[in-house]
């Protein structure tokens, strides 16, 4: 069987015609397999949804009870038969509950990695390489310029800045699912034990992470009515980046805007966004991790999705690994 007969791109997303299911569809479908809870991968309105328990919980938190017609939870490693196609979920190391989806039939195995990373992250299970014929990889940071530094060094910059500018509120932009909790956990691991204030948009997800056994320390809402700027002097505040352009940010004392993202690697890009303290912390693979993962898995073919597809395809060509871009649309990279 040709791999395309088992899985191929359609306008709604990757589709398995034999099992009649989509993976991370961008529009409502009959049956959806979801890799992780970021809103560009996990959308509401599918009839049947299969995902890890945590991904389903996160979808419920974000979209409410009626986020899908029916749901089915998959444990890591459990084999599930869908119309004669065997599927299983394996940790992707991206955010809490994130999974790679393995799709198998007649000895042909395709791995849809979803978004993944290889660096350590205490807030989720680490990526497990699965041998396969076709490896579908993301390429969010698929350019040789991306080398994510050790995240603790980045947090050290934040702690230095808190000492240099003790009067300023340090506002850290971090996406609500995954990045925010990881940043808070990292700050704790670097020895900071003061209260950390969070924007309201983060509250329920942080609460969920804590419920899943991830200790975030003393976190408090940054949304107290009538709070004066003085209350946040020298405080660490975490919120979604969009909130910082909002009137919401005016309550803080001379706010210093930090942003935790892999995009912060490129200085002038960071500067355009008005960021004063870029923190290069990513939940995606950097370039060396993408290359080493492909090397480690050793697939006979690589398909490249969202991101800078052309550079990774070029690299595969140079290494004589058959590769092609999938040109999927609709993945906006909420997570980084």
């Amino acid at each position: 069987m040709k791999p395309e007969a088992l899985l191929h791109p359609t306008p709604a997303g990757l589709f398995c015609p034999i099992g009649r299911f989509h993976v991370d569809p961008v529009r409502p479908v009959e049956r959806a397999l979801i890799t992780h809870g970021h809103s560009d991968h996990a959308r509401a309105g599918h009839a049947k949804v299969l995902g890890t328990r945590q991904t389903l919980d996160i979808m419920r938190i974000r979209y409410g009870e009626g986020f899908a017609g029916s749901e089915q939870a998959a444990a890591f490693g459990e084999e599930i038969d869908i119309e004669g196609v065997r599927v299983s979920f394996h940790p992707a190391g991206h955010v809490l509950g994130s999974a790679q989806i393995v799709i198998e039939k007649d000895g042909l195995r395709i791995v849809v990695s979803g978004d993944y990373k290889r660096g350590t992250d205490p807030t989720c299970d680490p990526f497990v390489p699965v041998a396969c014929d076709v490896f579908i990889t993301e390429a969010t940071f698929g350019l040789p310029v991306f080398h994510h530094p050790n995240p603790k060094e980045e947090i050290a910059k934040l702690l230095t800045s808190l000492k240099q500018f003790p009067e300023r509120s340090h506002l850290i932009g971090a996406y609500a699912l995954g990045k925010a909790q990881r940043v808070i956990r990292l700050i704790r691991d670097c020895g900071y034990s003061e209260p950390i204030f969070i924007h309201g948009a983060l509250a329920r997800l942080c609460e969920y992470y804590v419920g899943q056994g991830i200790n975030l320390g003393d976190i408090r809402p940054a949304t107290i009515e009538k709070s004066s700027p003085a209350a946040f002097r020298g405080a660490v505040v975490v919120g979604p980046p969009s909130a910082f352009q909002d009137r919401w940010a005016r309550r803080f004392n001379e706010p210093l805007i930090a942003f935790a993202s892999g995009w912060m690697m490129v200085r002038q890009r960071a500067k355009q966004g008005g960021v004063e303290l870029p923190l290069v912390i990513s939940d995606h693979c950097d370039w060396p991790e993408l290359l080493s993962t492909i090397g480690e898995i050793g697939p006979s073919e690589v398909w490249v999705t969202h991101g800078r597809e052309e550079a990774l395809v070029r690299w595969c060509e140079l290494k004589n690994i058959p590769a092609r871009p999938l040109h999927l649309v609709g993945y906006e990279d909420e997570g980084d």
Partner: protein
Amino acid sequence: MKAFATLLDRLVFTPSRNGKLTLLADYFRDTPDPDRGYGLAALAGALDLKSVKPAMLRELVLERMDPVLFQYSYDYVGDLAETISLVWDGTAKDTIDDDHQPRLGEVVVRMNSLGRTEVRSAVRDLLDRLDTSSRFAFLKLATGSLRIGVSARLAKQALSDMSGKDVTEIETLWHGLAPPYEPLFAWLEGRAEKPVLATPAIFHSVMLANPVEAGDLEKLDPLDYAAEWKWDGIRVQMSSYGGTKKLYSRSGDDITGAFPDIVEAINFEGVIDGELLVGGTFRSNSPTRTFSDLQQRLNRKTVTGRMLDEYPAFVRAYDVLFEGDMDIRARSFFERRDRLADVIEHAPHDRFDLSQLVPFTNWEELDSLRVAPPDPVIEGVMIKKKGSPYQAGRLKGPWFKWKRDPYNIDAVMLYAQRGHGKRSSYYSDFTFGVWAETPDGEELVPVGKAYFGFTDAELEVLDKFVRDNTIDRFGPVRAVRAEPGFGFVLEVAFEGINRSTRHKSGVAMRFPRIARLRQDKLPRDADRLSTLTAMLDVKTGQG
């Protein structure tokens, strides 16, 4: 290198002046000699580092990297130094911890001791031994373009903040000292006496004027001020002491070698501030010539006899800082001017004259003189407080410059190019044209290029227009729609206009910038080339 690289990283992103001062003062306090001194020199534009050509850097990176992948990376980042710092395959970097990376002082000394043939391998080795952000700092230093929004003045202010010493005192010493400034730091930290300058024939920071802005003059009494013509040459400083005679540009570059005619004629001792011009002095009774004539003499290391004959240079004196070795900067403008008049009276008449005062009784009168000056090489008036001492830097209050209004034309956007650095994702360099009669009928001919003057919000509008209306691409350049009934009209302001053989239109503007977006106009309303040539004729007195 690590401390300097970290400082640069923070400065790039810190918009506020106070924030920058804190970062700079912390760096100067915490970094040991001689590294901090070289860091200071780099920030103040006083670091002399063997330069590395971008082409060589490109070759080095391509030794290890696929050219297609490099190109993808460069297109994305938009800045060569940053791209190389990011893509450099530094397999050695993991084995070198922060404490054992090359230090800034070490890098500077090593680079400057290299022979020509050694540069390539030394740069490769340094790039291997530095981490990503230090590589960036090194490449910025080696290619000679820091561009991080820190002026020499700000760096000195940080020294003042760190030590409590007055910034003008630091300024006064500055040009007598050289990197890595160890005696300066020793004095700032109270470990040594104030450094003594060996000779006054060094460059002394010049006093600068602020432009007159709306409402400035109403608050001032015209009786307290004197006015002079503002001549369209370049500001220079002559230093002569103990047989050493030097000519410096406004920023302190030594341009002695290019102006032997002036330097040989110096028969006084002291430091004099003035305008470098070509043509004749008042006293030789021949006209002062234009800036484009002066340009023939600029940016040259040496000068031919023919140049000296065809473009004789002279200095129109504005001020005196030292008389002999006596510092008279603290005296009043009028007192200094009396001394100056005396010096110039006894100096060779064909090479030196005294800038004249422009008598006026009220601001309206001065305004009318300003807009209609008696000589085409005058670009406005200078207003100086009679009692003011000579203070280095651009203080608000004692000196003002009041220029003739800039020229304005309406032109049509023809081509756009993506910017660099911060603007790497924007089309921000615009070539514009005006209507001209050509053998093929009325056509838009390019007359200049501008890449500033607009706000960030206006840049969004311009960028969107370019993306939506591209009709052709030439590498990084896009041609945009420009027809009589459809296109983008830009109001372009510029400081002056010269004849040019290099441009097809025959004219070249000085400091063109986008003054306003004229979305209210159609390209057919834009100006014609004849408008520009008329400005040229007025200026050279031919019209």
